[in-house]
C-alpha cells in the first residue's frame, strides 16, 4: 500500500518538528541545563591529571559516577572516602589487578589532584536522596 502525498507532508512536518526540538533541547542542555555553579573550576594541574587519565585509558577499568569499566572500583570519591595518600599509593605501586604504570612523581601528583577535583563535584553512589511516588530521584547534590 503506497502512502498519499498528504501523509508524506505530515511525516516531513513531524520529522522537522522533532529535529528542531532536538536542536533547542541540546542547546538548553549545553547551557542552563548543566549549570553547576556550586562546583569550583578545574585547576591547571587537575586538567593535566585529566589528560593523563585519558592518555592511559584509566576509564577502561574505572568509573566516575558509575560510568566506565568495571575491572576496578569507582573513583568518584576515592580521595574523601579513603585519602589522597591512599590513591597515590595505588597509582605508584599498582596491585595484582592494576599494573604499575611507573609514572613520574609530577604525573602522580596531577592524577591525585584530578581525583580530588572529581571528588568535589558530588557523591557517588548518592547518600542523601529522595524517591518520589512515581519513581524519580532527587539528590542532595543536584544543582538547585
Amino acid at each position, binding site marked *: 500500500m503506497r502512502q498519499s502525498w498528504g501523509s508524506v507532508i505530515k511525516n516531513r512536518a513531524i520529522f522537522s518538528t522533532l529535529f528542531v526540538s532536538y536542536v533547542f533541547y541540546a542547546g538548553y542542555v549545553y547551557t542552563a541545563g548543566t549549570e553547576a555553579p556550586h562546583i569550583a573550576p578545574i585547576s591547571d594541574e587537575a586538567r593535566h591529571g585529566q589528560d593523563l587519565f585519558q592518555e592511559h585509558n584509566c576509564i*577502561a577499568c574505572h568509573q566516575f559516577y558509575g560510568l566506565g569499566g568495571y575491572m576496578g572500583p569507582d573513583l568518584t570519591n576515592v580521595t574523601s572516602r579513603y585519602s589522597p595518600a591512599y590513591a597515590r599509593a595505588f597509582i605508584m605501586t599498582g596491585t595484582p589487578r592494576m599494573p604499575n604504570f611507573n609514572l613520574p612523581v609530577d604525573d602522580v601528583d596531577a592524577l591525585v589532584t584530578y581525583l580530588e577535583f572529581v571528588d568535589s563535584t558530588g557523591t557517588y553512589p548518592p547518600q542523601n536522596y529522595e*524517591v518520589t511516588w512515581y519513581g524519580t530521584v532527587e539528590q542532595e547534590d543536584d544543582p538547585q
Partner: protein
Amino acid sequence: MMPKDDSLIGLKFMRLGILALAVGMFFGVIGGFQFLFPEFLRELLFTKTRPLHVSLVVAWIFLISIGGIYLYLPRQQNLKLWSPRAANVHFWVFVVTGLAILASYLAGKFGGREYFEYPAVLSIPIFLTWILFGVNYFKTVSKSKGPWPVYYWMWATGIVFFFITFCEAYLWLIPYFRESMIREIIVQWKSYGALTGSWNMLVYGTAIYVASRIAGSEETATSKLAYSLFFLGLFNLIFGWAHHTYLVPSQTWIRTFAYMVSMTELLILGKILWDWRASLQTYQKHQYCNAYRFLFAADIWIFINLILALLISVPALNLITHGTHITVAHAMGSTIGINTMILLASIFYVIREELPQHVHAGRTKQVQIGYWTANISLAVFFSALVLAGLGKGLYTGGSFQDMMLQIRPFLLVFAVSGIGLMLGFWVVLWHAFRLTGEILSPATPDPYPEPA
C-alpha cells in the same frame, strides 16, 4: 543497472564487517578472562583489549549497515549509486583509519574518551567519509520515485544523527565544555545515548527492509504503524538518553523527563506482545529461510531487552542497577541479541538473493549449530551478567575486592559462555564470509545482469 563490481561495493563492507566481528569477539573473550584472572596476557592489558573489542564490534555494526545500504539501493531498488567511486573511497579510508586505530590501541596510544579512546585526530577521516556517505545516500535516494518507505527514512535519520552525535562526542575538545565536569559528562553521555539511537536507526531500517522483502510486501514499510513506531524511536533517540546519567548531579527535570520518554517504549512492548501470535505463524512459514531465522531471534531479544531497558530507566531502580554488570547485560543484549542478529539476517538475505543456485547453501547443518550455540550461549551470558549486576548493586559492604569475590561465580559463567558465543558466531561468520566471497567471484553468474 551498474557493472557488477560497482554495485557490489556494499559486499566489501560486509566482508570487512564479518572480519571485524570475528576478531572483536576474540578480544572480548580475552577481556572476559582478564576480568577473572588479571595476570592473564599481562602484555595485552585490559586497557587495550577493551577498546579493541568495543571498536571492532561497533565497526561490525556500522560496516554491515553501510554495506547493506550500498548494496540494496543499486542491486534491488534499481537506484544506481550517485557515486560508486565515493563509496570506494569511503571503504578504503575506513580500512586505513580502522587499521590506524587498532595500531594505536595495540601501541597503548590513547587520548580520546571512552568508546573513542584513539587519538582524537583519527576521528577526522571518519567524520569526512561520513559526509561522503551521506551525500551519496541522499543523492541516490533522491532519484527514487514516490514517497519514501520507512526504511529510507530510518537510514536517512541514522546518517544525519550519527553525524551530529559523533561531532557532539568531541565537544569536550572545546574549553567551554571542559570548564564544568557536570556539563562535560552529561553532554558526553547525551551524545553516546543518541549515537546508539542513530546506529539503531540504520540497523532497524535494515531489519524492516529485509522483513518486507522476505514477506514480498511493502506493507510493513509503508503503513501508518511503521511510521508511528519510527517517530517514537526518533523521539526516544532525541530525548531518552539521560538514563545513563541519572546518578550524575544534574537538574532533576533532566532525569524525570528522560524517564517519562523512556516509558513511551511500553507502547513498543505492547505492540510486540500484540503481534506475537502472528510473528510465530510467520516464523513457521519462513522457518527454512536463514535470514528470517535471525530476524526471529532478534524479535525475541528485543522483547527481553526492552523489559530490562524499561526497568533500568526507572530512576528508583537505576539506583541499584547503575554502574553494575546489568548495564553491560543491557549493552550486550542489544548489540548482540538485536543488532547482530538483524545484521546476520541482512547478510544471509543477500546470500539468498545473490546466490539463488545455493538457496540452501546458507542453511547447512553447521550454520544451524552456530545459530543455536550462539543464542543459547547468549542467554547464559546475559543471565550471568544480570546476576553479577544484582550481586554488585545489592552489595552493602565497602570492599571492592570482597564484592568481586562474591560475584566471581557469575563472572566465570559469563567468561565461559562468552567462548560459546564466539565459537557459535565464528561458525556462522565463516559460512557468511565464504558465501559472500563466492558472490564476488567473477565466475559466479550475476542474478541482476545488465540489460542488453
